[in-house]
C-alpha cells in the first residue's frame, strides 16, 4: 500500500474494464506509461478513488493485448534492444486505435 500524495490510499493495482465487461487487474505502476490512464487516476476524477477505469471503446481481446503491453513495457523499460511483442494481425487496427486513445504512440521516456 502506498499513498501517492492523494487523500485516499491508492492501491498497488488498478482495474481496467473492457467494453464487454472483462476486468483486468494490473499493476498501477505499469499503467502509468499511458498518459490517458495517468490522467484518469489523478485526484479529481472518480477513477482515482475507485481504482476502476472503464473503457467503453475497447474490447476485451484488444484490452488484453494492451495490458500485455503494459507489463511488457514495465519489464523492459530500461533494457536496450527489446524485441517486439507478438501482435495478431487481426486486431492490429483496433490496437492502433486503442494505442492512440491511450497515448501509447510515443517512445517512453
Amino acid at each position, binding site marked *: 500500500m502506498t499513498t501517492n500524495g492523494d487523500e485516499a490510499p491508492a492501491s498497488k493495482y488498478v482495474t481496467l474494464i473492457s467494453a464487454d465487461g472483462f476486468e483486468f487487474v494490473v499493476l498501477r505502476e505499469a499503467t502509468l506509461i499511458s498518459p490517458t490512464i495517468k490522467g484518469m487516476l489523478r485526484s479529481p476524477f472518480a477513477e482515482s478513488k475507485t481504482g476502476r477505469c472503464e473503457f467503453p471503446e475497447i474490447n476485451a481481446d484488444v484490452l488484453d493485448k*494492451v495490458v500485455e*503491453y503494459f507489463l*511488457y*513495457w514495465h519489464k*523492459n*523499460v*530500461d*533494457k*536496450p*534492444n*527489446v524485441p*517486439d*511483442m507478438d*501482435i*495478431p*494481425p487481426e486486431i*492490429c*487496427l483496433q*490496437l*492502433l*486505435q*486503442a*494505442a*492512440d486513445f*491511450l497515448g*501509447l*504512440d*510515443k*517512445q*517512453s*521516456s
Partner: protein
Amino acid sequence: MDEEPTLPILPDAPWSTAAPQGLSSLTRPGRPRKLPRGFASPAYTDSSDPPVFSSDDSPALDNYAGDGRRKRRYVGSWFDQQPVLSSDASMDSGMGGEEEETKMLRPAKRRWAPPMEPRGPRKLKRQLDSGVWLARGDFSSTDSEELGGPEMKPGPAKLVLTGPALSVEEQEARRLVRRCQEEGNESVDLNSLNLKIISDTTLEAINHIAPIPNVDKDVFFEQRPPAIQLYLAANGIDRFPTGVLNIQHLTVLSLRGNNLKELPPALASLTHLKFLNVAQNALQFLPAELLTLLKPRGRLEDLKCQPNPFFDIKEDRYHVYGPAEYESGTFGVTEEPCGEWEGFKLTATLRARSPVQFSHRGTVVSNFKLPPSQEVSTGVRWNILEQEEFWHLQTPKATTALHGPRRGPASLFEQALRVAVTRTDHDEIQELLRDPTAPDHFLPAFQRAAEMEAMGGQSCCVCKRDMVVPATEWVEFRELDRVKMENNGPLPSTGEVLEHHRAGRNREECLVPFLRRGCSWHCIPFKVPEKPGMEETRPLVEGP
C-alpha cells in the same frame, strides 16, 4: 461316353466367358443363323491349340471346332483395344450374350457411332522419329466424327487468369531477360524500353542468370558467382523497382534518366554493388544507408548522381571542426577497417548538416521542415536547406531530456503499425482508415509505413532498429571523391584524386545530401561540445 468325366472348363479370358452361351443360342430355333464367312471358313478353327484328347466330345468343344468361333479382330493400338464394330458384329448384336459382351467391351462413346463404311486397305504411316507404323486416315475420320458427336462433353472450363495483363514493354523486357538467361549474358540491357513499371517477377528471372564458365585449355574450371549488370536507364520509372533489391549479385545498376523521387534505404543490402548511376532523376537526397556500400565496408567504386534536384546549402565554406566529433558521437566510434585495397575508392567526406526535423504522429512539430518531394514535370527546383553548426541542436520546445541512447521497447502504436503493414490487404485497411471516425493521422502514417515496407523496410541510423515511421530526419551534406590507389597503401591520403577534383568542380556538384532517419526523438545528431577556434572555415570550392 457319358460316363467319362468331362474336363473342367478352363478359366477363360473375360470376353469369351459368354461364348458358350452365345454359341448355344445359335442353335435356338427360329433364329436364322447368319455367320459371316468372309474371313473364316467353317473348317477352319481359330484355336491355336491342337486338340488335347481326341475322344473329347464335349458339346462345347464340338461346337468350338465345328462352327468356327468368330475370332475377334483388334485394330489399332493396344490401349484402344476393343472388338471392331464391323458388319459381322453388328449382325450378331441380336444375340443376348454377345450383345452384352459387346457393350461391355466397347466404350460408351462408341455406342452411337454410325456403322462404318467398308474400308479400303489401311495405310500405315510411320512418324519420322518412330519405328512404329500406325494406321492413319480411316481412324482420323471416325475420331473427328466422334469429336463432333452429341455425347461429346465439354471439357472443364479453362482457367482464365484475371491478373493485370502484361504491358507490351514488359513483355519485351521479359524476352530480353530470358535471352540473357539463355546466353549466360550477365549484362541485362533494358535501356529505353519505356517501361514505367517493372514487376518483381520480371526482375526475379535475372537471378537465374549464370555465367558460362571458361573452359579454355590450361584454365582451371571455375564456377564463379555471376556479376550482374542491370541497365534500366531512360525508362520513365517513377517508383524504385523493388525487384532490384532481390538480385543478389548485382554489381552494376544504372537507373539514369528516370523519374525516381527516392531511393530505398534497403539499397544498402546490395553489397556487391560496384557502380551505381542514379543521375537525371528527381532525387532530392540519397539514403544515408548508401554510405555503407562505400569501401572498405562495401565495394562501391563509383556513384554517378549528378544532375538531380538535390538539396543544397547557402554556405560556400565549411567548418573544419565538428564533422568527425559529430560522427563518432552520433553513430558510435566505428573503427574503419583499413584493409589492403587497390583500384578506385569512393570517399564521402562530411561537410555540413541540416537541422533536425522532428515529427510526432506523422506530423512535423519542429520549425525546420524538409521540403516535400516534387514532380519533375513542374520544373526542377533546387531547394536550399538551412544549415546547422555541429555544436547547435534545435529541438522542439516541448521536449526535454533527449540525450542518451534510446532504451525500452517500441511504442504500442509503432508495433501495431508494423504488424498492420505486413498484412496483404492494404487497400482495405486504407479504406477503413479513411473512415471519418478514424483519427486523421492514421492514414498518412500507414501510407508512409506501407511505402517503406514495400521498399524493403528501413532502420534507425542511430540505434539500428527496424522502424516504421521515422521520428527524426536530417540531412548530411557530403563531398564525394573518387580516389585511385596506386601503391596499395592503406591511407587514402597517399592516393591520387582522379575524378571530381575539387578545383575543377562547380558549386552544385560539390555536395551530395544524404538523409538520416531516426526512430525516436532520442535518435538525433550528437551535439558537439563547443571549443575555442571552432569557427574556422574553409572554402568548399578551391581556387578563384
